[in-house]
């Protein structure tokens, strides 16, 4: 009897890129729901636009590069980039800004470097930074989390046409984010305690923001449980934010918000569980991931406290992406049987 040749090991891989990416998308569902609850349906429109543009760009780039389009689209990585980008954009973002961010993320940050697995920078963050520095005004217009100021239809109309309903002006519908507000008010010589009495703030961080952060962390816990991500990067990022924040808060609680505020504000949680953990652009060894994550956390705190932007997650991640080859080089694990 004759038999077909096979290649050891004869055990099929337990997972696939599609499954990994699919789990990441699944883990973002609760946070998406919370986001929509506090800031209205703008996120869903942004997601739809970013996803459409990202998939189209990915397909076009793959076709131009002579790659098989469908199998690679099915890996869902472009979708993950689009969804994470959408999570960073304000609810009222004109469609062409979202499209620009998504297109840059896929075409420049990913496909120009060789596509999935070859990009040195996190594509979602690269796309976000481009629109952040190109359209700074639009990127700071957030809706207040205190109640819906715009309905689903009005939000959609703004997203597509850039028109606010009736006689409403910008001041009537939008405001600053808590991180932004804190910066501004601190520069006006108010104390953290006074500032946090305002209606933008909740128990620990910004109202609404802290709840979304909790759901993001919940999704992160799911990914940890499913072994899609390992604990090193999330823990290191959170510690990297917490440690310096706690230090400065203990020294001067009037000028520095408590470390818990930093953890649940802005994109800290999203960064710790979903952005910094992007395997392609992160460090690979355990020690390397701890170094990488911690440095991102510290950079987030530094940019927020003394830098030019209220949050800083995107810059922190991109800066550390640059350092990844060096980190990987210096944190190679000791091979079995080789002296340390």
């Amino acid at each position, binding site marked *: *009897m004759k038999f077909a040749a096979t290649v*050891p*090991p004869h055990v099929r891989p337990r997972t696939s890129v599609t499954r990994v990416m699919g789990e990441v998308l699944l883990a973002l569902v609760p946070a998406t729901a919370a986001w929509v609850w506090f800031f209205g349906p703008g996120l869903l429109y942004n997601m739809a636009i970013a996803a459409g543009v990202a998939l189209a760009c990915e397909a076009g780039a793959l076709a131009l590069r002579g790659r098989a389009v469908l199998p690679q689209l099915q890996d869902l990585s472009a979708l993950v980039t689009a969804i994470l980008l959408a999570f960073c954009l304000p609810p009222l973002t004109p469609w062409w800004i979202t499209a620009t961010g998504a297109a840059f993320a896929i075409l420049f940050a990913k496909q120009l470097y060789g596509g999935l697995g070859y990009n040195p920078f996190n594509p979602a963050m690269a796309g976000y930074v481009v629109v952040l520095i190109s359209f700074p005004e639009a990127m700071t217009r957030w809706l207040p989390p205190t109640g819906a100021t715009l309905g689903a239809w009005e939000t959609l109309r703004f997203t597509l046409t850039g028109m606010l309903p009736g006689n409403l002006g910008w001041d009537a519908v939008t405001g600053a984010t808590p991180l932004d507000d804190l910066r501004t008010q601190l520069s006006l010589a108010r104390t953290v305690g006074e500032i946090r009495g305002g209606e933008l703030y909740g128990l620990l961080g910004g109202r609404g923001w802290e709840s979304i952060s909790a759901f993001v962390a919940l999704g992160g816990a799911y990914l940890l449980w499913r072994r899609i991500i390992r604990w090193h990067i999330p823990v290191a990022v959170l510690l990297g934010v917490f440690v310096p924040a706690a230090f400065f808060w203990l020294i001067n609680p009037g000028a520095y918000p408590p470390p818990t505020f930093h953890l649940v504000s802005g994109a800290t949680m999203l960064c710790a569980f979903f952005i910094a953990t992007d395997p392609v652009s992160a460090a*690979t060894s355990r020690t390397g991931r701890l170094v990488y994550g911690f440095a991102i956390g510290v950079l987030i705190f530094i940019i927020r406290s003394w830098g030019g932007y209220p949050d800083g997650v995107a810059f922190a991640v991109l800066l550390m992406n640059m350092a990844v080859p060096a980190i990987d080089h210096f944190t190679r694990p*000791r091979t*079995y049987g080789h002296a340390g």
Partner: protein
Amino acid sequence: MSRARLWHFHGGLKLDSRTARPASEPLLEIPVPPRLVLPLSQHVGQQAEAVVSPGERVLRGQPIARPSGYVAAKVHASSSGTVVAIEDHPVPHPSGLAAPCIIIETDGLDEPWGGYEPLQDYCTLDGVELRARVRAAGVVGLGGAAFPTAVKLGAGAGLKMLILNGAECEPYICCDEVLLKERPEEVLAGAQVLLRALEIDRCCIAIEEDKPLARQALEAAIAAAGETRIEVVSVPAIYPEGGERQLIKVLTGEEVPARGLPPDIGYLCHNVGTAAAVARAVLGGEPLISRIVTVTGGGVARPRNLQVRLGTPIAALVAACGGYTDEARHLLMGGAMMGFPLPDDSVPVVKATNCVVVASGEDIQPRAPAMPCIRCGECAEVCPAQLLPQQLYWHAHAGELDRLDEYHLFDCIECGCCDVVCPSQLPLTQYFRYAKTELWARDRDRARSDLARDRFESRRARIEAEQETRRRRLEEKTRAANAARGDEDARKAMIDEALERVQARRDDDRADDDK
């Protein structure tokens, strides 16, 4: 008797064990087939040399091939009959190529040779004599690697402990488990002989904790013998714990140096099946002519373990297990993780054949096409050698051979763990195997060009030395001629003759150089 603590080795995988069914069946000794095919090379090391010729009648246990070097093992006739041919025949080898084999047509008498005497008391022999007996019996490691056992026993003084490896971690293999359940006293006797051969008094037998029956049987045998030097240790069932480097780490917390061997840190590992073979060889006077083989997989009707004469075709094993089912798709020797495919079932059982998997389509599913590496790092998490498979893959892919050395490619044990966890479905182990052969080829090429350069340089040196000698000889002759100046004619004749000789040699040299 239980050990205070166990250590962990890095990485590894919990694999679904598929041994419940074959391990629950009793061991079956199958009849001698009409034809035995005994490859001259059944072990790591040099191929043996046949000492019989076609037409010759041989008896069971008679040596038919002798070792041609130190790392080599004898081959014995595994039943009585007539040598009909010594020729190339397909053998179980990853290359799939045929190799020289001694083919015996058996006579059904199974007549013993009687050249090896059973031994009443092994304590009458010392280490050297015991090792000679093991070597004469052609015993090699039965765990799958088939390294000549007597060579390992020459490890030298300073050993702390003998480790018997009963940790079969491959998901399909259970020949050691069945051996421990059915013949624990053989393993025990083997351990005692090995301890005496090594002149040490400490032995640890490792059995995976999901094999309680094997452990109980062995412990009962040890208790019955009142043996206190031997300890049975349960180890967690994590693949690839059966690798000796991993097992040593689990039992002792120590690591075997990368370029070294276990005896360098005071340990020696043998498979439990090897220990039983040593007992049969030394005490029973029976050379290695049969072994236990697990025959399993969805493609065989009744998976079980068989006691099989070496040289029996795989087809006979499958027949003894009820034949193929309709599901039979692939044939493997060794386990699902490290085993390799066999082209057909005419290949014989050899000393290294611990398991035959007749895989169904469900056992082995085709891999999805490979995707780009997303650097998830899971391969590094599971690598028992603590390598960075993704970096190795990267450099292997780019053909950067020097970087592969730097990332310790040769520490890869090819266990396949990284393949199993890779979400991109990359055939990593294949890449590493390929890269190793590339590096070997490069080193061979380098050695060859070094040799050629040395040869060229020594030839040039030789030619220069010859010319120098000639020049001196000529000078001496000229001097002698000057001294004999008296006879002008004689002198002239002498000079002419010398010049002619020089001219002739020069012509010769030129002809040489032109060649």
